[in-house]
């Protein structure tokens, strides 16, 4: 998980990782291959292994829920129409979204949009899942549902998932390895157990910004 204050550069890092932003310096390695050294086809091959959950869902407005999930399958496989629909329905059921196939994104709630976006991201069985603030704009209960879904999918499909968030509940709930970004730099790294005990001032200011977290710390 990558955490940090708003404007610290979390989303920029994520966009660099998936090739949406140009790098000023450094490398982005996928299985030892530097993404930015690859030609268009090389990048395309890696992008087929990437699923991404955007902050606002980024569902295609002109397509229904089912068409949104079918879209990447159509682009990258030669499956028949019924096979594509079956796969889309499987993915939608996996994210606990039923009877929404014919709805358009404008007819969905924030949580439903996120679930459709997850279904679309896993439709072509990616190796890497990137999530940009999956809980933004969601109520606490829906946030937990989305967090758990991301965790389950990561374990079930054995994929590498990177989550950008500033929601400490998510960090405690599903965090494994945590990176704290401060003013664009990798300021701190560790596990969720370590982050609760760290003495790093900037990390503590961020992690224990709320009363709830301060109370939690007093228990350690």
């Amino acid at each position, binding site marked *: 998980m990558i955490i940090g204050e708003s404007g610290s550069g979390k989303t920029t890092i994520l*966009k660099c990782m*998936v*090739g*949406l932003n140009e790098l000023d310096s450094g490398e982005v390695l996928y299985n030892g291959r530097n993404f930015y050294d690859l030609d268009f086809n090389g*990048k*395309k*091959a890696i*992008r*087929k292994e*990437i*699923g*991404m959950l*955007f*902050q*606002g869902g*980024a*569902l*295609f*407005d002109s397509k229904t829920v089912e068409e949104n999930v079918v*879209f*990447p399958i*159509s*682009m*990258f496989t030669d499956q028949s129409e019924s096979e594509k629909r079956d796969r889309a329905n499987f993915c939608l059921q996996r994210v606990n979204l039923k009877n929404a196939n014919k709805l358009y994104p404008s007819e969905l709630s924030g949580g439903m949009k996120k679930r459709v976006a997850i279904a679309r991201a896993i439709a072509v069985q990616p190796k890497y899942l990137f999530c940009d603030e999956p809980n933004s704009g969601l109520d606490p209960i829906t946030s937990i549902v989305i967090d758990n879904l991301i965790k389950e999918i990561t374990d079930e499909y054995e994929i590498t998932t990177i989550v950008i968030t500033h929601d400490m509940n998510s960090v405690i709930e599903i965090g494994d390895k945590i990176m704290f970004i401060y003013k664009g730099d990798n300021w701190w790294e560790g596990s969720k157990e370590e982050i609760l005990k760290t003495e790093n001032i900037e990390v503590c200011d961020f992690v224990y910004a709320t009363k709830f977290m301060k109370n939690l710390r007093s228990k350690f």
Partner: protein
Amino acid sequence: MKRAFGKPEKLAIYRDRIFEEINLLGIGSLGIVAIISVFMGAVITLQSAFNFESPLIPVYAVGVAVRDSMILEFSPAIVSLILAGKVGSSIASEIGTMRVTEQVDALEIMGINSASYLIFPKIIASLLFNPVLIVFSMFLGVLGGYIFGVLTGVVTDYEFIYGITYDFRPYNVIYALIKSGVFAFIIASVPAYHGYYTQGGALEVGRSSTRGVVYSSVLILAFDLILTQLLLS
């Protein structure tokens, strides 16, 4: 623009996209083109009849004026300017909204050449359907002129039909179709470019849309002049 003409990922999907765009941009514009063309033809008829007061000018000249005005300028240029407003703002705002809501990024993440996927079918649809709209406009303009000319009594049906067939040059239609092809490319590509490079939010989408319409309109007028000089001189 080079990326917009990149190799398509899947031809079948691009073919479907082209048909979608023809329906959206082309067939969706038939109504406005029909209304404008009929009224333009009618107004040219009435204005020509009003101005041809000299007994030395035969009445059938009204038909000639309507035919040549519609074919040479009004249908290819004026209708293209109207389409630049209607279709151009639609293209720029659609792609601009997709950009600011990260839908374009979503396409890129999937390994899809977003410029090609979004822009190429619009340009092809415009190139295929714009000439059809222009011919449709020519026909309806002349028909509008005929109906209103005869109904108001400024010209008889025999004189009007004689006028529109008098000294007809097929090359004029070819000239109009060449112009409409060039304008079709401008109508689709310029607003698409401005939409694709939108940055920011809803306000910037509006600005991109305005820029797309203004630049494509100015380019249409500039190329109208250039092509007229090249093809008719």
